[in-house]
């Protein structure tokens, strides 16, 4: 009974990790940069949503649409302010800039919104029962959004000219430019999409995580990145599976192990997996063999 409850709870937790991991994947695939501010962008999205709710917008679906639009704009600004100035110095400089942005976001949101995390309304409140297991409607919404975003992202990256152009930009910037790909525009678009996705994820997960709070962004970044590496940073289906696996394993292990031992065991297993499969469960090696 408790194992099943923890399975459901773990799938929700894993879906949250997977949404963050998709942001890592999207930016990496389209630009070659690992963006460590991804978890903090989720928090910023939740806080913007909270402001809208507090201003009287009671339909959370409307809040989601507005937050998506704001997130896309913030993504363009994020690229202009943090990423563009590093472009002459290579990807490491850009990654360092994203680490700096985590501090700006983490401390900045506390100055603007205060240090306390705030409760956030669900899109659909209430639970339903499957046998003896209670499932919240909000969990179902998160699972559904994760599925839609993952399928959409996989299709865009693999089946469209835009997606292939973006991957080309990330793989070899000079070659892509020489064949007419607008690398700067693609990079800006990638960060806009990643911020938009993170912001929407923030509104969706805030009923579970609360909106804001000191350590949430870092926790989401750490777990989202772990999920992405576990599944394979290069693979859309990989990061989704990685996130879900991480959430379920964490939840189930907590039943048998002291809470303080769960993360060390999970990360220990991750190291072993990466020794055997350096590109993650769905990484490049597996794709080639397939």
């Amino acid at each position, binding site marked *: 009974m408790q194992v099943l*409850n923890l399975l459901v709870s773990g799938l929700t*937790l894993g879906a949250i990790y997977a949404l963050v991991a998709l942001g890592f994947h999207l930016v990496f695939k389209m630009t070659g940069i690992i963006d460590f501010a991804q978890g903090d962008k989720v928090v910023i999205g939740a806080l913007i949503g909270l402001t809208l709710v507090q201003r009287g917008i009671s339909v959370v679906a409307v809040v989601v649409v507005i937050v998506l639009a704001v997130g896309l704009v913030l993504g363009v600004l994020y690229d202009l302010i943090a990423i563009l100035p590093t472009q002459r110095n290579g990807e490491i400089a850009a990654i360092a800039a994203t680490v700096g942005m985590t501090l700006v976001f983490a401390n900045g949101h506390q100055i603007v919104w205060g240090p306390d*995390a*705030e*409760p956030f309304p669900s899109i659909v409140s209430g639970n339903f029962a499957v046998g003896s297991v209670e499932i919240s409607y909000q969990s179902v919404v998160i699972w559904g959004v994760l599925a839609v975003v993952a399928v959409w992202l996989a299709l865009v990256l693999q089946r469209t000219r835009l997606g292939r152009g973006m991957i080309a930009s990330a793989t070899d910037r000079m070659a892509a430019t020489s064949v007419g790909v607008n690398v700067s525009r693609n990079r800006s678009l990638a960060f806009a999409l990643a911020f938009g996705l993170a912001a929407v994820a923030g509104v969706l997960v805030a009923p579970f995580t609360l909106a804001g709070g*000191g*350590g949430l962004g870092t926790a989401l970044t750490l777990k989202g990145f772990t999920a992405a590496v576990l599944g394979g940073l290069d693979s859309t289906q990989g990061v989704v599976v990685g996130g879900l696996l991480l959430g379920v394993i964490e939840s189930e292990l907590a039943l048998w192990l002291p*809470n*303080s031992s769960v993360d060390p065991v999970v990360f220990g297993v991750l190291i072993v997996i990466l020794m055997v499969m350096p590109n993650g469960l769905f990484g490049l090696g597996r794709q080639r063999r397939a």
Partner: protein
Amino acid sequence: MRRWRGLATVVATAALALSLSACGSSSGGSKAGGSTLDIGVLNSTTGNLGAVGQQEAQGIDLAVSEINAAGGIKGKKIKLISVDDQGSVSQSTAGFKKLATTDNVPLIIGPGISAGAAADAPLADRYGVTQVLLVAQPKVVNGTKNVFEVAPPGTANSEAMVKYAADKGAKTAALIWANNPYGQEGLTDITAASKKYGISLESQNSWDPAQFNFTAQAGKVASANPDVVFLYGAGGSSDGLLLKAVRAAGYKGKIVGDLAYSTAATIPKVAGPAADTVVSLTAVNYGNPTAAETKFIDAFKSANGGQVPSVLTTYAYVAVKMAAAAMEKASSLKGTDIAKALQSLNYDGGLVGKMAYTSSYHGGPGIAAFKPVSFKNGVYAPPVF
């Protein structure tokens, strides 16, 4: 010639740096000669534990505004010099040294985070600065000359929790403790107190205040179904999430929380209806306040838009009021003289309890300082059981 000139510049710079550093370390009141009296504040207003420092800052600000409105200390108005250490030990010690040697303050209030407090306490004696910590760990300050606490010890909070549960007939218990130094001490103290009061502690689990999913910990407690569950919080919103998770897991017995569960700004808002089911043992008698407590609570609400002061806010307020009383009594405004005055002050402002410091004990009041309180529909109420 050019080489010699360069060497001379280096030597001169080093000499200047040494002399400046010597000036700093021998101070402890050099700013007291002006029309204002500088006091240092060292706490975490941002970072993972930003909520703790911001609560403390509210209490400090109210106390200073009241003292200045009443004429200040020895005719001088207090001016606060604040450093945000972000809950980091390295930033806390760096901030302490800046306040002690650059700003030359004779007295520092804070920090309120255990690790930073433990690192800073030896510095207060070294630099001749009086420090009033906002933590609840007497072992950090006992043995020092210049460092004091106002918060009743965590040990006393734990014992008050267990005694309250035992008085209500509990024979079996479970504990969920925050995995930080404060919570780890809670584990030790609750375990010891349970033995003392004849309660069988059947399970204990930690929780990480930076996380948000506590289904596993809550499920274990619900399965064990003890007479009482003790919750040791971390002073942030996640305390409310943990409480909510325990009730959501189906546990219907008594829940007794540490003082963190008396925080009106977060617990009712985050935990929802579950907030009305916990009894918190806290150092401010919110459920049945005395005249002094009512006066303080009303003054705080008036200055902060109706917000009720948390217990951390209250500790910070008491720390400043007590320090001000010591500075009035001290023979001079040097840090070491303030410490001497503080130790013999026996301060009791009607909040928290009497500060009965001795040469070997610089901690806050004991178990009698803690009173039970609950919430009803989001506002303080007498204990629910």
